[in-house]
């Protein structure tokens, strides 16, 4: 043991955690004089001092360790104080009010699948039990009569001990800690007996013997570790003769043993057996190293055992960084840089978690610096909002592209800020502004107007008024909204829209008949002709139509007349206009009135092959004569 205890373990409360856990030592726990307080000391399993401080609280009845290396100090009055490995106070809880009176007689800390529990027995012989201190539920057990004592003795086992010492039950043996030594008392496993028993004929022993013969120089040192090497060498030797034996197991065992050797080093002080290691799992071992702040060793082990970064190196780095941000003597700058250099972009290390830790420790600036390294903008936002850096939160949300996140921040800002500031903030973030506009379009029309006003966006404002005018039921309001639209279109220098809206406004204000007049008056010639043509035909005012066709030269031509008449099923009227059609449209016109001969004549006259083809395609077998004529004409044209 590395420690040198002046008074040995006499008069001390000692607690050592299983699995090579730390040792806590409280000297003279019941001393009450304020002038000389008892000292609480924490050592690693190899006796390296980790923490030491005077005990200022009440008398302690029992010490114990939780599964996550926290020290439980159970006081006489039933309160339980929890410290971490480095002696910093974490929290406390009580085993019940009535204990204050009756006092704790004895206490035990125990581990179960539910976590770490505490059991006490009070001066009034009552048992109280908490099965999991992280989810505290006190259970009172019925009174136990008398002072029953349970003793289990193994009559065969005798082990002489001279010093006062502490025993810690381990999975596969008993750890015996005295003021000078630490020993592991273990029954020799069956497999080992087989190998090392004198004159053993077990296969393992023979293999060892064979190997010994093979390599005579090997020492016969019986030290536990050395013999292990020996066995391994033998195994390695023997393995060569087995063809279908997978070397994986051999290799992984070797690696694990190397790791165990490393953590057994007295500077680390985690004396674990292989069985314990297997039981506690590598994950937990790494956690233990991390609790003890052996970061480099933990990382080396992760790499050596090739654990995926996610479960290994990254986890260690995360702990390291959370610890690093608490170092008060370093500047924000220095810490941020150090964290960035070490963590880089290791997978699974969340900068926002580290930043949250920094913020928890009151280092907001550092937290912001750290958040800058966070790749997932989504993760940055909640913390930034918590730290009241709403502008930054907004820009990070925008950066992420996640519009729901942007809405989250916008909504937050809207409730936090006054309207003016809120609008100004949005103005600097066009994406957020657009999204908010979308929201307003659906939910808050009035706000939408204010937004456009603020931005002097006259075009959109005008559009807004137009939309609003259609929602309006009363003519007066509608007119005034359209007037606003006209004004805004003018301001937007959108002359066309301003004028069109003006016209709409006038039309709406005028009597319906006047509106028609007004429209007729304004429509371009061509459209006027179309309108009139269609409406007369629809009303079957054929005489009127004919008059109209002669009123002046039609700006839309006369094919339109033919087609419209046909559309209204009046072939007779349609035929009237065929002759007026321009030569280019003659064929079309004749075809429209199903006058194949006329069409053929026109096509032949124009010597237009495509048109002749068009006529032909409309002919049926009964149109023999026309077909012949057309074919002749085509042949003639072809000759030329």
């Amino acid at each position: 043991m590395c420690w040198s205890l002046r008074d040995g373990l006499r008069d001390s409360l000692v607690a050592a955690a299983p699995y090579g856990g730390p040792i806590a030592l409280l000297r003279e726990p019941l001393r009450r004089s304020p002038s000389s307080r008892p000292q609480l000391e924490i050592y690693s399993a190899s006796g390296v001092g980790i923490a030491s401080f005077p005990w200022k609280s009440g008398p302690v009845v029992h010490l114990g360790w939780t599964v996550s290396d926290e020290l439980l100090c159970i006081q006489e009055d039933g309160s339980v104080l929890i410290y971490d490995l480095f002696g910093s106070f974490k929290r406390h809880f009580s085993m019940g009010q009535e204990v204050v009176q009756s006092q704790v007689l004895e206490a035990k800390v125990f581990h179960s699948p539910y976590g770490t529990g505490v059991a006490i027995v009070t001066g009034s012989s009552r048992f109280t039990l908490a099965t999991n201190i992280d989810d505290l539920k006190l259970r009172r057990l019925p009174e136990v009569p008398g002072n029953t004592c349970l003793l289990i003795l193994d009559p065969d086992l005798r082990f002489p001990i001279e010093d006062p010492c502490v025993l810690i039950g381990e999975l596969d043996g008993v750890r015996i800690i005295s003021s000078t030594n630490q020993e592991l008392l273990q029954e020799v496993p069956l497999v080992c007996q087989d190998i090392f028993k004198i004159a053993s004929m077990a296969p393992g022993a023979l293999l060892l013997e064979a190997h010994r013969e093979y390599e005579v120089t090997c020492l016969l040192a019986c030290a536990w570790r050395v013999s292990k090497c020996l066995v391994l060498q033998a195994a390695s030797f023997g393995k060569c003769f087995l063809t279908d034996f997978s070397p994986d197991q051999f290799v992984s065992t070797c690696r694990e043993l190397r790791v165990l050797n490393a953590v057994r080093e007295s500077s680390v002080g985690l004396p674990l057996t292989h069985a314990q290691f297997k039981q506690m799992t590598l994950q937990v071992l790494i956690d233990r190293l991390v609790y003890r702040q052996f970061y480099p060793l933990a990382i080396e082990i992760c790499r050596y055992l090739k654990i995926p970064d996610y479960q290994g190196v990254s986890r260690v780095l995360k702990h390291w960084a959370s610890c690093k941000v608490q170092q008060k003597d370093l500047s924000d700058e220095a810490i941020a840089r150090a964290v960035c250099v070490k963590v880089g972009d290791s997978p699974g290390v969340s900068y926002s978690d580290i930043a949250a830790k920094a913020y928890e420790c009151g280092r907001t600036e550092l937290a912001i610096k750290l958040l800058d390294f966070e790749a997932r903008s989504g993760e940055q936002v909640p913390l930034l909002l918590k730290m009241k850096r709403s502008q930054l939160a907004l820009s990070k949300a925008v950066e992420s592209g996640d519009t729901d996140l942007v809405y989250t921040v916008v909504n937050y800002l809207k409730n936090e800020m006054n309207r003016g500031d809120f609008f100004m903030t949005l103005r600097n973030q066009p994406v957020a502004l657009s999204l908010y506009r979308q929201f307003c379009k659906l939910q808050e029309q009035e706000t939408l107007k204010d937004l456009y006003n603020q931005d002097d966006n006259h075009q959109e404002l005008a559009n807004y008024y137009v939309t609003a005018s259609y929602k309006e039921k009363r003519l007066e309001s509608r007119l005034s909204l359209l007037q606003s639209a006209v004004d805004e279109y003018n301001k937007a220098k959108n002359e066309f829209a301003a004028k069109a809206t003006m016209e709409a406004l006038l039309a709406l204000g005028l009597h319906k008949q006047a509106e028609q007049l007004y429209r007729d008056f304004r429509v371009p010639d061509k459209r006027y002709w179309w309108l009139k043509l269609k409406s007369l035909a629809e009303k079957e005012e054929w005489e009127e139509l004919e008059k109209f066709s002669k009123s002046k030269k039609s700006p839309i031509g006369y094919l339109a007349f033919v087609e419209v008449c046909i559309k209204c099923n009046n072939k007779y009227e349609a035929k009237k206009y065929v002759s007026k059609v321009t030569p280019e449209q003659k064929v079309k016109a004749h075809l429209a009135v199903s006058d194949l001969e006329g069409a053929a004549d026109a096509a032949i006259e124009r010597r237009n092959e495509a048109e002749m083809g068009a006529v032909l395609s409309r002919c049926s077998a009964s149109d023999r004569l026309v077909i012949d004529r057309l074919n002749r004409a085509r042949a003639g044209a072809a000759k030329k």
Partner: protein
Amino acid sequence: MAAHLSYGRVNLNILREAARKELREFLDKCAGSKAIVWDEYLTGPFGLIAQYSLLKEHEVEKMFTLKSGRLPSADVKNIIFFVRPRLELMDIIAENVFSEDKHHSSRDFHILFVPRRSMLCEQRLKEQGVLGSFINIDEYILDLIPYDGDLLSMEYESAFRECYLENDQTSLYHTAKGLMTLQALYGTIPQIYGKGDCARHVANMMLRMKREFAGTQNQILPVFDTLLLLDRNVDLLTPLATQLTYEGLIDEIYGINNGYVKLPPEKFAQKKQGEASKDLPTEPKKLQLNSAEELYAEIRDKNFNAVGAALSKKAKIISAAFEERHNAKTVGEIKQFVSQLPHMQAARSSLANHTSIAELIKDITTSEAFFDNLTVEQEFMTGVDTDKVNTYIEDCIAQKDPLIKILRLVCMQSVCNNGLKQKVLDYYKREILQTYGYEHILTLNNLEKGGLLKPQTSSRNNYPTIRKTLKLWMEDANEQNPNDISYVYSGYAPLSIRLTQVLARPGWRSIEEVLKMLPGPHFEERQQLPSGLHKKRQQGENRTTLVFFLGGVTYAEIAALRFLSQMEDSGMEYIIATTKLVNGTTWIKSLMDRPESQMT
């Protein structure tokens, strides 16, 4: 199992299976019998993932459409709302929950947001006082829905409008997320190319998301070699043009929704023997269209003018196959014939359906109106008189043809002229407002904002340069046996697909000048692959490119890409993804604003 999804180069069934698994997991979270209340918009896309049978297996006993008022009674333990995260839907849900009789029933409520949950919506439910009534509030991340063996769509209708009119990039976030999911299943895509602002934004988000996952390296061998992200506004022209492929025309005329089309029933009357076909069906005929149907896969991408020949060839093959029965002499031969019978009968009914559809379409494509419209479109695309008021458009307005048709043409003229002279533009606008109503001023403003309609700002019209450099017009397009993508529009080669084609060979460096004329940046990014995942390409093995159209893609464009995939010497296979399958009509419609007059 949706077989047609696994035919292609990339097995998209993996994606579908992943989506189904997630759905099942959610359903099992709500133990006991269930009723689903559907946001109606979602039923179509969900149909592509799971049929009712899957839901039934997980104790879904009833299905309702989400509507205000009281929920229909159903003796079930759970009521699950499947909804998009929209505020107006939250109000309806709140109403539903409130009107639930508190004393007589103890039904559990759940919400499944598709594709993502939203703070705003949950806030709204909270304000309405019903948030606490929900046992599960979850999200079902359905970004990219497998449509066909080579086609993925997000069915996000408003994407173009939101991105270009409202500066709301929610759809792009979903796109990036969807692409991350895709990469998780099909491996990291090593090369990313893009053109356009939205493309840039999506690529940035993807790279960022990848950094967030740093360390958890994707160990899947990459299926895609390249991702090409294209903004729809890089090529505004193509969707405006009338598609001339078979599938494109079906969509233009009847509209294909989530892989289904509804057709006028007259041509599909079942003629049973000995029965006069007096009872004509009145319900529209609903048909599913995808590559699972052999004949459809064969003709969907053909120019419509080549479909007739293909159909009659198929008819001959099928009747020849039926004739085989006369040659079947031995029992073995007859047995073999009978075993093929179901397949042959399916082929025959498929042939009958498509013959009917082709007849329906032919009636339209041979009409004068169709021809005239197409002529004007082609004039614009070839640059004839694009700077003057077009008389055909004028006439159409005067005759009050459908407004969308007018808007398509005017926008096309504007795009082909790099903007219209102020005078021309104002003339069209005035005509439209006076004919169709003043309220359309909002739509016109939208079209201008989206760049589809604009005043000419510089005297230089760069469209001819773009047309010539990219060979957008091919005089001698071969519709029957195409040798170039221009066959899909009978002469016009879609700009978007030319960009894709040039990227594959000889590369964009050859068209730097043109790229600069098109809006938005073009870029290239590389994503590092873990060592060991670099593909060792077999001799003659094709590369695979995922082309993602941000803001919509047409069936004709898809046909052009399929054509490129099939070209022997292209060396490239294309998988297509998009925010939404569109055509000129649906696209323009999504950009329209129609305030309903409240005047009484």
